[in-house]
């Protein structure tokens, strides 16, 4: 192990700090920041500046629009730490840059990389993930939406659901059944689909938070060229799973946990009840510190996982627990935020006396959504015990005599 920040790294840290100090007034404020398939202008401009200086798309090759630096874990960590502690936007995120781009780098054709990676990392092209269907959630391999070959094209027919940001996206990456005859897992292909294709209809669904984050997407003989496929026909399951691994890392991001913890500390220092600071309540403070232990563990865990990934090793069961544990910690951080506010923590939708825009409540609910989305906690536990610990699968129920 070598975690020393030698002089080179201290110099790098100083550079990052100087950049942030010089430019942070240009950084967009938190928020969704997406309209009609593109990130807002301010977000895109900020992202451009970040890429130019190597603080976003850092390791993406130059020919695809990235900064093209060789991978250096300590530098990544330093960037993350400095941006987080300054509370400054990391630019464009989401399913495009964090899930599709790594998948394309691994499995895409040269033409696909050229065409999609640049606009995606610049925030000019927003993506949604079309996996789940009404009858296929945990059992993802059972998706039914068909892609029927027709000349040089596929005709897509069926329905997706829970498609986050589909109503704001220009493109979808998704799983479609191309091989009607093949077995469940072997019949799927991974396709890239423009959302303005005739025959695609998007119906937003409101979530329990009151926002419309996800959608139903209906396909009626929507026509896309066969060249929209990533990998080969029938390889969709393998490729989708690669994407899901990236998703699970994204959902449980240690940087997000770290940011959440900082906000919580600020809240507990600022908020007062019964004549004292919430931070002075020993029980609430103890909960905060327990969470701090867990957030620290997740942060160093992510450094360890990153190291393994960059060395091309599979870290085994330790990698499989990230989503389960990370999402739980995130949910608990927000639960403590609500408790720190007490009765005022219940206020919502712009009520008088609401704190932090009701964010502790909306994030408390949203993180429950994350515990379910991207493979539920129960499915994660199955994966951990079966793939990680080598335990046998649950037997199928016996056929009735």
């Amino acid at each position, binding site marked *: 192990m070598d975690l020393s920040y030698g002089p080179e790294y201290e110099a790098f840290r100083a550079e990052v700090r100087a950049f942030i100090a010089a430019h942070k007034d240009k950084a967009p404020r938190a928020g969704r920041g997406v309209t009609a398939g593109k990130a807002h202008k301010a977000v895109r401009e900020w992202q451009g500046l970040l890429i130019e200086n190597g603080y976003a798309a850092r390791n993406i090759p130059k020919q695809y629009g990235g900064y093209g630096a060789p991978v250096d874990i300590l530098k990544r960590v330093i960037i993350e730490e400095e941006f987080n502690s300054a509370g400054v936007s990391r630019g464009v995120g989401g399913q495009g840059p964090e899930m599709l781009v790594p998948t394309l780098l691994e499995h895409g054709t040269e033409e696909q990389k050229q065409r999609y990676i640049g606009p995606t990392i610049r925030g000019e092209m927003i993506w949604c993930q079309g996996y789940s269907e009404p009858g296929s*959630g945990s059992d993802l391999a059972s998706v039914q939406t068909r892609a029927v070959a027709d000349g040089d094209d596929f005709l897509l027919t069926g329905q997706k659901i829970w498609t986050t940001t589909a109503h704001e996206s220009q493109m979808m990456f998704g799983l479609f059944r191309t091989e009607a005859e093949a077995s469940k897992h072997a019949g799927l292909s991974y396709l890239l689909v423009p959302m303005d294709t005739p025959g695609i209809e998007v119906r937003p669904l409101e979530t329990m938070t009151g926002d419309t984050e996800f959608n139903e997407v209906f396909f009626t003989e929507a026509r896309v060229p066969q060249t929209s496929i990533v990998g080969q026909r029938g390889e969709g399951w393998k490729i989708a799973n690669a994407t899901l691994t990236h998703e699970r890392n994204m959902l449980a991001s240690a940087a997000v946990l770290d940011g959440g913890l900082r906000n919580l500390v600020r809240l507990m220092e600022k908020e007062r009840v019964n004549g004292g600071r919430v931070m002075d309540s020993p029980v609430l403070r103890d909960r905060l510190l327990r969470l701090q232990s867990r957030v620290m563990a997740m942060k160093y865990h992510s450094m360890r996982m990153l190291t393994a990934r960059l060395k091309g090793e599979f870290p085994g069961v330790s990698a499989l627990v990230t989503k389960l544990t990370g999402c739980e910690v995130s949910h608990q951080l927000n639960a403590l935020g609500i408790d720190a506010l007490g009765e*005022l923590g219940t206020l919502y939708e712009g*009520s008088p006396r609401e704190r932090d825009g009701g964010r502790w409540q909306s994030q408390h609910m949203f993180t429950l959504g994350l515990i*379910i989305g991207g493979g539920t906690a*129960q499915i994660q536990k199955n994966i951990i015990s079966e793939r990680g610990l080598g335990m046998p699968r649950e037997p*199928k129920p016996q056929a009735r005599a």
Partner: protein
Amino acid sequence: MDFALSEEQELLASTLRRYLDEECPITRVRELVADAAGNDGGTWKALCELGIAGLLIPEEFGGSELGLLDAAVAAECLAWGGAPAPFLGTAVMAPVALCEAGSPEQRARWLPGLASGSTRVGVAANELASRRDGAGVEVRDGRLHGTALMVEGGPDANFFLVPTEAGTRLAWVDAQADGVTCKRLTTIDRTRGFAELHFDATPVADWLGGEGGARRATQRMLDAGRVILAADILGASERTLELAVAYAMQRKQFERIIGSFQAVKHMCAEMVAELEPARSLVWYAAHAFDHVPEEATVTALHAKAHLSEIGPFIVRTATEVHGGIGFTDEQNLHYWFKRVGVDRQLLGAPEALREQAAREQGWIE
């Protein structure tokens, strides 16, 4: 020994559940609460016709003179239905305070209106448990000055009951009196209304218990309120458990019903394993309120604290059993999730209540 609900209590529960199921199912609640002004479509009136408002009020004033266990049974049912009803303040805390501290004239003046449901009371008790800087109501020259937060039923109340001077005095205030401002607060729970009150030299219609004589009434009112909130959490969590089990029996993944996976069965089993002992605790606390006075405060504190811990676990787990659909607005599960989330914070959060219970038992100063 007979630790069970009576036939009458069972009947009350089944009557209420049937009424809510038929006349005010959650789909109807949804329509009603979309109206930000708090119009309940006659639900409270109809519930009052079933006797809900007068449960704790003596017969001579038009009530049915029952005990807190009966009220807890009703509260559980109302929460089970997600009903928009100002039960806590109007049907429980205000009647308890009046019965404990009101003079014969004061009782005769206010209890009949409460029993019929025409009088609605917002009880400004939040500051007894959780006082924000600048909040709190004080008395100067016999008039009220100050601010009270999170008054349940406040927006639709025609009277307010305001504890002052650390709960030693209880002021009964006309909502239309001089210097009263009532501002609606919006919480995650749309089924109940909350308000912030300001008093600026507001005259008091009646002092209950006279000068400094309301300490016990205030404590009784808080004990009762906490038991009722515990019952509310019980009913709301119970409903989400029922919905989760029903969904698990019907939803299929991997060619089998998800209820056949041990993971799902265990989630349901854990929920019920927390819920059922908690139900017994709520019943006992409600019983103790009327029949074991020396245990009333401690059991009320524990009931509220404990239900505030297991309730959130149950509503969260029930949501997980539903998968993605549990996270949607249209599934309606979140009405109970949010109701429990608000109950947890009212009249004292669990940590504070446990601290109080330690003090009550003489374990700490």
